[in-house]
């Protein structure tokens, strides 16, 4: 007659084996159908020699032997593995345990438990993949929108460029210098994302200045100068009134890049930190690049001269803190200048 434990194991689709000193396993409870099918190739009567027919189990036996040798309480498990049985996947798990100095292996059919485990993991992984996809999609869309804004801005700038002696390279450099300084100043992400293109728009108002003034070689008469200076407000007007962060910053820079730290700039005589930080940055790099550039009516100045002149204006024309940062990254500024000609 079968004992209650034998019946029980059979009912839960598990088979208990005892490991003998010669490393063979002896079955101690009744065999189930799947067990018979899988283990027949490894059996001699009720003894089983697990080898290459059941590579997973044979690998687990190495861990089992270690566990038995240590004579520890409790059991270790193999984790689930899958065999093919009657054209279907059969999920099994093995446990190795010590009991009364004897060594046992319990092999159980995971059945429903495995399906539940699989479902749970499947849902978790599907969710992770979906989340990953959504996040990527979002990043891609944002980048695309940003790219569009930039394209529009660059088109506008190109239009402004047709008439001016200020080359596209100058405009591009102003953007790059400004971004480098903003980064060194550790300004916030919004500024960092927009300042490069926004700074390039600083002179966009010049599009509305008549040729005879804009292109005049040499110095201006007082009323010409007055008209020339309107480019700041004109540019600001062109960029005003949208809810696009890039254009808003472009507005702020166009309007304020001729303001001076000591309040003697134009158009509003703003002073110190009344001048937005992005405009204080552009004020510096605009002077630097313009003085180093040749114009039809002037040769470029040497960098030594330019820096000396600018240093004299530290705290007058230029925000002293931003100016110091500018000096601290001069190597990078010079690299930009040599790369974008």
């Amino acid at each position: 007659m079968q004992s209650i434990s034998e019946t029980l194991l059979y009912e839960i689709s598990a088979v208990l084996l005892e490991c003998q000193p010669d490393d063979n396993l002896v079955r101690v409870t009744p065999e189930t159908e799947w067990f018979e099918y899988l283990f027949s190739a490894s059996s001699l009567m009720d003894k089983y020699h697990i080898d290459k027919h059941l590579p997973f189990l044979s690998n687990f036996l190495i861990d089992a032997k270690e566990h038995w040798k240590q004579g520890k309480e409790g059991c270790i498990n193999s984790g689930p593995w899958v065999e093919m049985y009657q054209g279907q996947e059969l999920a099994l798990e093995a446990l190795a345990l010590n009991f009364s100095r004897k060594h046992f292996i319990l092999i159980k059919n995971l059945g429903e438990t495995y399906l539940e485990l699989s479902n749970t993991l499947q849902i978790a992984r599907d969710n992770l993949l979906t989340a990953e996809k959504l996040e990527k999609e979002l990043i891609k869309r944002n980048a695309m929108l940003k790219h569009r804004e930039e394209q529009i801005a660059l088109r506008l700038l190109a239009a402004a460029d047709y008439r001016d002696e200020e080359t596209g390279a100058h405009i591009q450099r102003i953007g790059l210098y400004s971004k480098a300084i903003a980064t060194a100043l550790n300004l916030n992400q919004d500024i960092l994302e927009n300042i490069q293109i926004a700074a390039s728009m600083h002179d966009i108002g010049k599009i509305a200045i008549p040729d005879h003034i804009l292109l005049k070689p040499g110095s201006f008469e007082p009323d010409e100068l007055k008209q020339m200076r309107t480019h700041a407000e004109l540019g600001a007007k062109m960029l005003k009134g949208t809810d696009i962060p890039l254009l808003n910053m472009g507005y702020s820079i166009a309007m304020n890049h001729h303001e001076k730290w000591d309040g003697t700039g134009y158009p509003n005589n703003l002073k110190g930190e009344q001048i937005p930080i992005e405009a204080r940055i552009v004020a510096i790099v605009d002077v630097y690049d313009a003085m180093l550039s040749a114009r039809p009516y002037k040769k470029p100045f040497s960098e030594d001269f330019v820096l000396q002149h600018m240093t004299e204006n530290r705290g007058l024309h230029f925000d002293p803190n931003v100016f110091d940062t500018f000096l601290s990254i001069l190597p990078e500024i010079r690299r930009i200048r040599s790369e974008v000609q």
Partner: protein
Amino acid sequence: MIQKKICLIGAFSVGKTSLIRQFVESIFTEKYLTTVGVKIDKKVLELEEGPIKLMIWDLAGEDDYTEIRLPYLRGASGFIYVADGTRAETLTKIVDIQEHIDADFGRLPFVLAINKHDLIGEWEVKQSHIDHLHCKSWSIHKTSALTGESVDQLFTDLAQQMVKP
């Protein structure tokens, strides 16, 4: 006949199971069924040196070395590391895992599959990253379990490395 154990390792959903199914049964399934536990497939490959029987261990996808059950790797003669070309981070992760395995198991033959090459338009893995691994003499295959591209080559390449004296 020579018999060798190999393991496929890589993050979840990179296509480990699909590569094995394509190699062993020439089947591909669109639907994603995550692997739970271990499944072992067998296939005999005919090499110039003679036939070799591969015992192919398909492991559940793990992102991290610490989560891999190391006893499963015991006795392996070679590894196939798998990344998903459309998910750049799966390559970064597998490179990290390879370093750990190399340190713990000694240098064994291995190949790298960058899978889902049929989705080349959605690829994120940078050629520069691949070139960098080439420089470290990694053997790399751009595979597709869907079309079967380079799948046989992947397994054959590893098999050849394993039988080389």
